[in-house]
């Protein structure tokens, strides 16, 4: 059995390889889309849905919304296709254009675009302006820029991203201010994306034909969901021995989310995966280690950005406080 780190390295290598060979298309599976989006059904009624950064002919997002157009009561569905170097097209469903009494994929209108369908192109921004909710799997490499655009235009969204994005400087500020949060997620915290172009190195039990397994993937959204209002049940009692303090920041180290003590009033450092259990009524996010640890003021010039215990650096941490104590 290879160590987990090996697997990570391999999939990163694969991602790079895929990017180079222009096969950077990771299609989210329909069953994963269904499992997440069933929690948002009431948000879609009478809304304009926009799926960009996707090849609508292949995309299961398009498939999901076109098959469910009437069921969800959509107002309009738009998808744009991206071409690297030539003009592209958009697909749209608005009404029962073929007059068969139902609104579905048979009513799709295909219109050529002047530009290549890049989400940053003026044409696509125009479509974004007309839409209410963006649902897609944007390229991980452009995630910051993609989210920045959504906020600039003040749109609602449900998008796939990597959990590493939580600590990107720009994204983290939004997380801290409760303007973006995690969705229900993929089972086991890993997604199988459809990508025919290269080999998956997932271990035998996890391997699926024609797919690539990427761990640490989640949904990011700013739509209200029940999940973020569920309290995490705490049961551990604080003790100095079990929860050491950091050398360089006044907080205790909690290396597993489930071990958050129920009676500690001050700041606590938790792994990034805490976000999956985060309820803004229960906890407040104070900051985050690494580069953007700076705003909370412990970073010393010339030293690392992580917190440390007895001189030993601790992996990336979020700093939180229990709001219910004080």
């Amino acid at each position, binding site marked *: 059995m290879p160590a987990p780190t090996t697997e990570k390295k391999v999939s990163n290598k694969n991602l790079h390889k895929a990017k180079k060979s222009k096969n950077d298309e990771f299609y989210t599976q329909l069953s994963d889309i*269904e499992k997440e989006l069933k929690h948002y059904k009431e948000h879609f009624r009478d809304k304009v849905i926009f799926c960009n950064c996707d090849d609508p002919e292949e995309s299961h997002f398009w498939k999901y919304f076109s*098959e*469910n157009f009437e*069921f969800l009561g959509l107002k309009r569905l738009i998808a744009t296709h991206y071409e690297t170097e030539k003009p592209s097209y958009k697909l749209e469903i608005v009404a029962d254009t073929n007059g068969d009494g139902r609104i*579905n994929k048979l009513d799709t209108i295909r219109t050529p675009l002047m530009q290549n369908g890049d989400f940053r192109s003026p044409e696509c921004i125009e479509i974004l302006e007309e839409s209410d909710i963006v649902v897609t799997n944007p390229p991980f490499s452009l995630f910051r820029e993609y989210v920045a655009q959504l906020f600039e235009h003040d749109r609602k969204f449900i998008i796939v991203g990597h959990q590493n994005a939580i600590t990107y400087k720009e994204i983290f500020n939004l997380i801290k201010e409760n303007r973006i949060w995690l969705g229900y997620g993929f089972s086991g915290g890993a997604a199988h994306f459809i990508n025919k172009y290269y080999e998956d190195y997932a271990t035998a039990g996890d391997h699926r034909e024609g797919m690539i397994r990427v761990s640490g993937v989640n949904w990011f959204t700013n739509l209200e969901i*029940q*999940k973020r209002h569920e309290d995490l*049940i705490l*049961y551990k009692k604080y003790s100095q021995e079990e929860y050491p303090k950091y050398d360089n920041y006044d907080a205790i180290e909690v290396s597993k989310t*489930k071990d958050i003590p129920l009676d500690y009033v001050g700041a606590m450092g938790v792994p990034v995966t805490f976000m999956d259990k985060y309820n803004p009524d229960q906890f407040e996010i104070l900051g985050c280690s690494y580069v953007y640890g700076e705003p909370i003021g412990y970073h010393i010039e010339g030293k690392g950005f992580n917190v440390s215990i007895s001189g030993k650096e601790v992996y990336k941490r979020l700093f939180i406080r229990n709001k219910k104590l004080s």
Partner: protein
Amino acid sequence: MKIELREIAIRDVVAGYTNNQEDGVVGYAGKLNIRPKYQREFVYRDRQRDSVIETVRRGFPLNVMYWVRNADDTYEVLDGQQRTISICEYVAGNFSLDFQYFHNLTDTEREQILDYRLMVYFCEGNDREKLDWFKTINIAGEKLTDQELRNAVYTGPWLTDAKRYFSRTGCPAYAIGSDYLNGSPIRQDYLETAIDWISWRTIEQYMSEHQHEPNAFELWSYFQNVITWTSTIFPNYRREMRGVAWGSLYNEFSSKGFDAEKLEAEIQVLMQDEDVTRKSGIYEYVLTRNEKYLNIRSFTDRMKREAYERQEGICTHCQGHFELSEMEADHITPWHAGGKTTSENCQMLCRGCNRVKSGK
């Protein structure tokens, strides 16, 4: 006890279907508790889920299901939970089969599904009768554990709350107790053990007494106390500690003072004593002083024969002569006084004398 086989159309089961964390999974116009909240969440694989729908669409029969009638005219799904959820989720439009959602089917296809009849055994009776009956029918398919059966009988707010702590993967009871308990939370082993401990082995009585209480805080706080007490008096963890009846020890000994260091020193000695054949019993022994927990090694037939010959068949106690088969081996220096299970420390007593001696 009344048991009745009825045909229930899918149309009726899916009526009023809701599935959320807050209320659990409900159907049959709100009268059917399909999965109480925090009930074990065995997740069906997509393939199993899809094959249920396939079966229904082709009009093939599904296995019979079991519903239990509660006092307030509601029902509980005892067997058939995953199949029922698969059907309801499909009709609710939450997943597709071959890229087709329920609402994309033709009217005829939809009607066929809604008209499909599930075979359901309805059962009603008092708690005792239900429990007996469940145990009897619990032979086919995915077997339910005793505690799962009890959970189907003693439903209510108390149980719902208890499951938050004891019955989920990664639940708090597992997090604090997995070093000390055997079994799995989702199969209700943790809940069973906790109730067994707090109730002094009268699980069903405890459940029926607490059934309608608003929460299970008493049980959870008791369980935390047991674990804290255990890890305080036995701070040096050994794997033999898993599966010990900690609650029973807690009930009996938590009010007495113990010196953890002294206990640890004694445990170390006993762990190395090859006459102690049941190492996990050491923990019970150091508190109860009852040697039966240690399963002290017994004399071999060879040792017995040697002692018998040495004594020339005379019982060292009453001086009578006996056949080997009429005699029993005994430690000359008792084990607790440092005597070992060796030939030199073996004497043969007649059955009568041995009974008298050990009964002293």
